């Protein structure tokens, strides 16, 4: 039986890490995820976990140590934010290419410059091509639940890929919520023991990992890696259902709010989805056919599934809490519209860029987005698909 506890998002994640009891955590603290590392280090010092905690000198070293520990055959977890994730960038690709199931909590924060410690998704979006799976939690409960699923998904024999579990910096990481904390044994049973595939410490079966790989095989290896993601998507669905069967909270690739007959749809990730839910409920009371697509799984990007739920929309707004400088539109919009276009769906679509560096997004801002949708549902695709909101002119 679970116990409801008032926890900050960061504490909920640290508690989940204690319950998972990984073999190795090699971490370097950075705001706003510092508290997770700090709390977990205390669990280690107090003997509550068996984890080998490696205090490294940078995030580059942290992810290097994590990837190596996973290659050796350990269950490995790590935590970071923003510039810390950016410093891991080189190794992120290697972790995924080597198919090591490392689980990394990313407490989303704006990338410098200028220096900003508050929430946006530019850190995770910057890592979107590295080959990691990326789950976005809306609140502390989801951040907690997602971590167990992240381990289960990553370690599945048909997946063997690293997973980032993302939560919004400060908005979730430092906010107290009632979190249903499940029983240690029930969770450990649910996650199960880890059976590493081809661990380097199996000295009786030596093999070569990460060798020189040039024009003659590299592209075959990348093509083979490409093929891993449909299986990983299926694993996200199955582990989300399995979690629900045991603990009563089911998860999928996305959460659809009033989408069955929705004409005006907003799409968002992270805590903003919670704000959108309230607005959608209010608009429904006023008779507006509003809906929300909360994307939980950004990688693998569930293109056909998104098209399926968006194909009836008369107008769509995709909310990006990140910019992609020099690109025509921001990442979530680009991928969503690409999915729609390649499946023959051409609803008018607006890309909203908002919330960078922790700029607040309020219900009235979302109401404004629905007003824009009403207009473009009538007038058609706007000439400039990008609109920044919550920014002073």
């Amino acid at each position: 039986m679970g116990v409801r506890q008032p926890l900050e998002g960061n504490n909920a994640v640290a508690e989940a890490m204690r319950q998972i009891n990984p073999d190795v955590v090699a971490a370097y603290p950075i705001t706003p995820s510092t508290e997770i590392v700090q709390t977990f280090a205390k669990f280690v010092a107090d003997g509550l976990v068996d984890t080998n905690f490696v205090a490294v000198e940078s995030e580059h070293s942290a992810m290097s140590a994590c990837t190596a520990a996973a290659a050796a055959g350990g269950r490995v977890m790590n935590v970071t934010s923003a510039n810390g994730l950016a410093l891991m960038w080189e190794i992120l690709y290697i972790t995924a290419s080597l198919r090591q199931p490392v689980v990394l909590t990313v407490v989303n924060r704006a990338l410098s410059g200028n220096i900003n410690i508050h929430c946006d998704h530019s850190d995770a979006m910057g890592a979107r091509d590295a080959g990691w799976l990326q789950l976005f939690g809306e609140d502390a409960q989801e951040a907690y639940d997602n971590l167990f699923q992240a381990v289960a998904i990553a370690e599945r024999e048909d997946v063997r890929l690293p997973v980032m579990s993302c939560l919004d910096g400060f908005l979730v990481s430092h906010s107290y919520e009632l979190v249903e904390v499940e029983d240690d044994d029930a969770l450990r049973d649910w996650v199960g023991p880890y059976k590493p595939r081809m661990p380097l410490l199996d000295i009786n079966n030596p093999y070569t990992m990460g060798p020189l790989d040039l024009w003659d095989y590299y592209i075959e290896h990348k093509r083979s890696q490409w093929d891993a993601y449909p299986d990983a998507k299926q694993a996200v669905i199955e582990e989300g259902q399995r979690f629900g069967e045991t603990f009563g909270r089911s998860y999928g690739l996305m959460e659809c709010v009033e989408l069955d007959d929705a004409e005006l749809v907003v799409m968002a990730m992270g805590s903003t989805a919670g704000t959108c839910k309230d607005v959608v409920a209010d608009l429904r009371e006023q008779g507006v056919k509003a809906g929300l697509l909360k994307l939980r799984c950004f990688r693998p990007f569930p293109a056909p599934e998104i098209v399926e739920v968006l194909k009836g929309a008369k107008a769509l707004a995709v909310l990006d809490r990140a910019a992609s400088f020099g690109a025509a539109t921001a990442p979530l919009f680009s991928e969503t519209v690409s999915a729609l276009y390649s499946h023959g769906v051409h609803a008018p679509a607006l890309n909203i860029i908002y919330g960078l560096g922790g700029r607040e997004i309020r219900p009235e801002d979302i109401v404004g987005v629905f007003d824009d949708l009403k207009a473009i549902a009538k007038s058609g695709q706007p000439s400039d698909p990008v609109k920044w909101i919550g920014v002073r002119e």
Partner: protein
Amino acid sequence: MSDRVYAKDAGWKDMVAGGYIPQAGNAEEYSVAGWRIVHPVRDDDACIDCLFCWVYCPDNAVYVENESVIGLGFDLEHCKGCGICAAVCPKDCIKMEEGSMPAEDE
């Protein structure tokens, strides 16, 4: 030499996930002869078997047996043609000659 893991024309579905090679220490089987534009040739008559070339070669491409290199030549599947052996030879008896292979092998 162990068997090659992948056939030369192996397709992407034949790859081991993660790009692993399910054996260890097989770099020996990977020829890098094509990386070379010059190759070393030793004048065995002038060589005094000091073994400097063998010690300094970064690619372990100088053949040695019973503490002698004379008459054994170079491993031209793995020599990169860097010329270090020629540079360190106290008798100047290694020459870097044009081409990746000696003329008769081309």
